[in-house]
């Protein structure tokens, strides 16, 4: 008997199936010869080519092929498709497309090299798109900054690659909004930061306080700013460590809430925040993984259910507290425990008979839930509860097999996109009526076949 490789067997199967979506799914994992066959299936009709050109899930190789066609509808779709690779975009641009298409290319994350040319485009819309593209280089950004255009100025002030000279220039010519963004820019030169720190305009001080490259001394001063929004921005700024935030008695609850979100706070600060009268302050601190167990225990008895939920979702929550919260009267708190991958068996066991769909859905996702129980959940009457098992990396094959026959298409789609799908289930899903399911099933089979060859 002749040896038939897994890849050969799969390709015959895909050719016999003749399904464009399955072909798309398998494409990236196949050799050149097989790709040529899959290409014929995937791009057989114009209708199909139009679909592929617009699909964010389409393989880059096929998008590149499509860019060789002079069909204006294809060109437009390719320019908009985030998956279109750089060489295809270059070809589109070489074909002198209309301004609308050039604008899409100018905004495209893969446009890199093309931006130099597009920065000189005669359409202002295109140049604006370049200025807003995060991959625009320092030189491009500097060249565009000279333009007298408010939108370009705003984009440049927020551009990651804007350098000190450009920012300096914008600081001098820009309006208050532009200057505020300059003050927030990590590349902002120190002299401007000093001006910003003492500006009369609270917006500019606030933006300055949010600058991640702000010198410590300035930040410490801004923590004392009379304006609560400026203080809030300073508290959020991780340029100083949480340990340096030693005064959590800010009169503004909004500022204290921001304190409660910081890590590495001093113990005394944590204790004060945990006893704060504002629900939201306690809610945030209850989620904070630096909070010691004794305080969590106290917060687990908080009258506000949202605070108790936060305790349950705190990665540092000790097992006994989770067990106690598993009996909480509020289902959303119990669901929080059910979602915990390190919940003790006792807590999980207590939740198994829960009737609430949020609790069951959370258990369904949790790898700690016993396999027999996952099988029960996979058969639950609520389709959303059932789907949760498809997200569970420890789900037993038996439960996944149940989901492979689920009447709800989304549940099969979720199952099909599991990277650990067995060949048996993938084969079954390859004949599914939903394109998305066939796509993912074929991708799975092809990935496995590729590693076996």
């Amino acid at each position: 008997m002749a040896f038939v490789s897994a890849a050969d067997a799969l390709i015959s199967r895909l050719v016999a199936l003749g399904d464009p979506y399955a072909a798309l799914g398998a494409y990236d994992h196949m050799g050149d010869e097989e790709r040529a066959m899959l290409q014929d299936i995937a791009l057989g009709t114009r209708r199909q080519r139009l679909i592929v050109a617009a699909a964010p899930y389409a393989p880059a190789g096929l998008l590149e092929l499509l860019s060789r066609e002079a069909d204006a509808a294809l060109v437009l779709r390719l320019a908009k498709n985030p998956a279109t690779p750089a060489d295809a975009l270059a070809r589109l641009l070489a074909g002198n497309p209309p301004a609308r298409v050039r604008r899409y290319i100018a905004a495209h994350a893969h446009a890199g090299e093309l931006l130099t040319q597009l920065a000189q485009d005669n359409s202002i819309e295109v140049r604006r798109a370049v200025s807003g593209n995060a991959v625009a280089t320092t030189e491009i950004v500097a060249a565009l900054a000279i333009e007298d255009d408010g939108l370009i100025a705003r984009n440049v002030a927020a551009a990651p690659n804007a350098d000190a000279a450009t920012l300096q220039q914008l600081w001098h010519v820009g309006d208050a909004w532009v200057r505020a963004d300059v003050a927030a820019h990590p590349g902002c030169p120190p002299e401007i930061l000093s001006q910003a720190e003492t500006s009369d305009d609270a917006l500019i001080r606030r933006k300055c306080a949010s600058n991640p490259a702000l010198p410590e001394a300035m930040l410490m001063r801004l923590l004392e700013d009379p304006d609560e929004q400026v203080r809030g921005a300073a508290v959020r700024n991780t340029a100083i460590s949480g340990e340096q935030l030693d005064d959590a008695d800010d009169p503004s609850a909004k500022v204290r809430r921001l304190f409660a979100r910081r890590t590495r706070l001093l113990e005394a600060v944590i204790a004060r925040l945990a006893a704060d009268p504002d629900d939201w302050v306690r809610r945030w601190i209850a989620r904070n993984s630096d909070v010691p167990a004794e305080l969590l225990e106290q917060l687990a008895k908080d009258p506000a259910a949202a605070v108790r939920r936060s305790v349950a979702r705190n990665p540092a929550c000790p097992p006994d507290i989770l067990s106690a919260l598993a009996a909480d009267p509020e289902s959303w708190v119990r669901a929080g425990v059910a979602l915990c991958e390190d919940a003790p068996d006792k807590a999980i066991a207590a939740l198994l008979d829960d009737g609430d769909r949020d609790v069951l859905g959370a258990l369904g996702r949790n790898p700690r839930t016993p396999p027999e129980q996952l099988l029960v959940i996979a058969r639950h009457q609520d389709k959303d509860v059932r789907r949760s098992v498809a997200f569970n990396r420890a789900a037993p094959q038996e439960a996944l097999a149940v989901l492979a026959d689920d009447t709800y298409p989304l549940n099969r789609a979720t199952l099909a996109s599991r990277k650990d799908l067995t060949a048996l289930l993938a084969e079954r899903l390859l004949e599914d009526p939903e394109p998305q399911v066939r796509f993912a099933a074929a991708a799975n089979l092809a990935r496995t076949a590729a590693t076996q060859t």
Partner: protein
Amino acid sequence: MKILVTVKQVAALDDEFELRDDGRDVDEDFFEEDLNEFDHYSVEEALLIKEAAGDDAEVVIVTVGNEDTDDALRTALAKGADRGIRIWDESLADADGIAVAKVLAKVVEREKPDMVFTGAQSADFGSAVTGMALAGLLGWPHAAVVCNLEYSPGSDTATLRRELEGGLEEIMTVRCPAVLSIQLGINEPRYASLRGIKQAKQKPVDELTLDDLGLAADGVTSASRVRRMYAPEKGQAELITGSAAEQATRLAEIIKELRGM
């Protein structure tokens, strides 16, 4: 006992599409076609009744459309319906729901079913006309947007719920035979695999012409005509531009104004 289910192949569009040269419809290359979602539910409802009734019940699927619409027919047959009927004539190319209903009425006269199910509306044109127009032509009892149904074959009434605005439901009884238009969510439709859909080719499908139904091409008139089709004004969204602080300031104004704050 026989239930007739009417189904439609519908077309979906992507954001970018082009119109046909005559400006009265979209260029077909931009279509993605499928069985109307509502029809999955009406077929399922018929199959559930058939299964509860036992062997002598029959579910017949009917569509008015050219041979491309065989896909929709076979998708329904593959789920377990017994046979199909497809009617086509080039003169139906511009047919609206009323014209389609006129054709379907002749099929009902021929098949004499105990019940007719249609989808509540189609996903593409969505006029919600075909089913209730069919009832009007037949002079049959009817109810639209049925989200729950209790009916046992042979009984001369059915009890149903209609889904009204805001999730309110009306409970009503209706005399049978009746034409009911079926709402999403009435059941959990089963599905058939691609293989099953291919195999459904073996199920009997009657391909009929207007002539076969005793209809003359000029006898199937529509109640409307498409004068022109066009894309709605693009980018109706007013873009709020500027820096994030600027955008948020404007958004806060909008919120406060709309909320009277």
